[in-house]
């Protein structure tokens, strides 16, 4: 599956997909989408890179990438943000909104052009969920890729 056409297309498309994924994650509290969707888009960019390359290179690259740790980090971050809510009311309470902290800008009422610096914990949750999803989906495909490519080489 590593023809020139695919390689060239990947080289052009993958950066765009990755940027688009990050955009969806970061704008999760303003536009449709969010952590999972953005993470899935981001992961699909990475997956494109995986399947368009030969097995050995992919393996060498991803041996150093801490996918498992990223996944744990995402989940722990989510939990941590949830526990942050215990400070004010209950678990997952939006404690950062309107606090002036990063992403804690004043949320306007009604129709607005969309301000990135709002959303409070929602933005953080989106980022953590996005991290977890991109790491999780990538490692799923990576493992299948490594297993099946190896067996095809053996056959």
């Amino acid at each position, binding site marked *: 599956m590593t023809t020139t056409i695919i390689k060239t297309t990947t080289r052009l498309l993958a950066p765009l997909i990755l940027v688009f994924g990050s955009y969806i994650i970061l704008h999760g509290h303003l536009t449709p989408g969010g952590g999972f969707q953005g993470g899935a888009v981001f992961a699909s960019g990475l997956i494109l890179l995986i399947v368009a390359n030969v097995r050995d290179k992919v393996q060498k690259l991803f041996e150093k990438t801490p996918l*498992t*740790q990223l*996944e*744990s980090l995402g*989940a*722990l971050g989510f*939990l941590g943000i*949830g*526990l942050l*809510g*215990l400070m004010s*009311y*209950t*678990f*997952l*309470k*939006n404690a950062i909104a309107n606090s002036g902290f990063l992403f804690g800008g004043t949320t306007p009422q009604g129709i607005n052009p969309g301000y990135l610096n709002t959303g409070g914990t929602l933005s953080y949750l989106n980022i953590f969920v996005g991290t977890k999803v991109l790491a999780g989906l990538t490692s799923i495909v990576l493992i299948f890729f490594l297993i099946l490519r190896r067996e095809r080489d053996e056959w």
Partner: protein
Amino acid sequence: MIEHLPALMVALPLFGAFIAPLFKKHYKGVSIWAIFITGISVVLSLLLMKEVVTNGIIMYVFGADKPTLVLPSGYAVPIRIMFEVDAMGAFMAISATLMSFVGAIYSYSHVKKDTGLEKYYALLMLLEAGILGMVLTGDLFNLFVFLEIAGIAGSALVGFRNYRGEASEAGIKYLMVSSVASLMVLFAVGIFYGQYGNLNLAYIAKNVSFNMVDMIALGLLFASFAMKCGAVPMHYWVPDAYTEVPAGINPPLLVATYASLYALFRVSFTLFANVVIDLARVGWIMSILGVLTMFIGVTMALIQKDVKRLMSYHAISQTGYMLLGVGVGLTVLHDPSKLAEFGRDAMAGGVFHIINHIIYKSLLLMTAGALFYVTGTRNLNEMGGLARKMPITTISFMVGAAAISGLPPFNGFASKFLIYETSYRLNPLLTVFAMVTSVLTLASFVKVFASAFLGPPLEKFENKREVPKPMIVAMLILAALCILFGLFPNVVLDKLVYPAVDALINFAQYHSWGGLA
């Protein structure tokens, strides 16, 4: 902090589960971490039970101080995710945390030789989180989510020994069954949402009417949860899954099965209890399903040669007792005189049997795991004369076998006693089946005992020794619980079981706030 207990109950195992992969190859560290986390969660669940018994139902809303959204027009609906913990939920939470703890201790040495243990423990704690979420939630969709979490984590654990083809086979069977059941639960949830525009259990229960679509939803929920808890004739996945799973996971997996039973009770009592006309019918279906389950389960167990498979069929058969006990109670729920006369005790028997069965069946499956650990086989035909080599395992097995057969003074006796007496009042035929089942249970455990432990010492097991200490500790904890629960059943009944049963019977209390607090 005490008011945040319901959230912490789920957050703690999740935290443990996400930390666990970071241990990488430090298998000793991760197993101690798992024991630590599950141990704390036992303490939390006991606190939760105390809180529920003293202060009544706990409502915990996520992300806000109130569950309700009041629209500008004055229309108020509960839209937030919330946990609603009553005594029944707390009771199940205690079972779940206790069994995860025991399973973690047992796993310390049982899976020592396997690799990928950081994932094993992560999944163990994820399974615990799934069960806890299922039993604590007050939201139908949340129930589905946690059902799936428990199902995925459970089936991944069933297929944990990926060097065995059978493990993968059992894993995909369990996963297929649980995902189809969960999807149908989601379908039923969709039906409720379409009709009542809400997902809150209490709100739906208050507004549920008795139309055909509701009854279809009830049928879907009933069949799905019955399949997930292993009622005949949808029990085929149970022996497969229980046999192939590492023995340390058996206790939490059992609780996961009974969390589905809990959901079944929750649906039939809390959600549909207001529908007077059909409830006796549901109760009868449950009782008959129970009788079928116990009888077919035990007769299949008699002919098994694989020791864990034999015990899994007994797990099916014991589920029948719970269905029978609670089904009898459900049949007479709207008849106050009969309810006071025997209905409440029948349900107490059924609910008490849940925790009893979880304890002694975990004990038995652990002894089976110990046999496998020592002999390397599960085939009863190849065992024999192990009593001298493994005295503590033998004693644990005897305690478990006596308990499952309902011999006094072990814990199975008290709950079976209650079920016999009360089902006799509804229909003597039910009792006859229950007793025959009990006799056959004893018979098949005599078979295991005679063929694995008794007999002349075999040469091939010459230099086998007793299992390592953590496994012994785990088995002895459960054996001690068996005897304690058996000697003083009234204490357990008063402190744990009757509050749970009353929580089920007084369903009006559960939705008294009607989602509009």
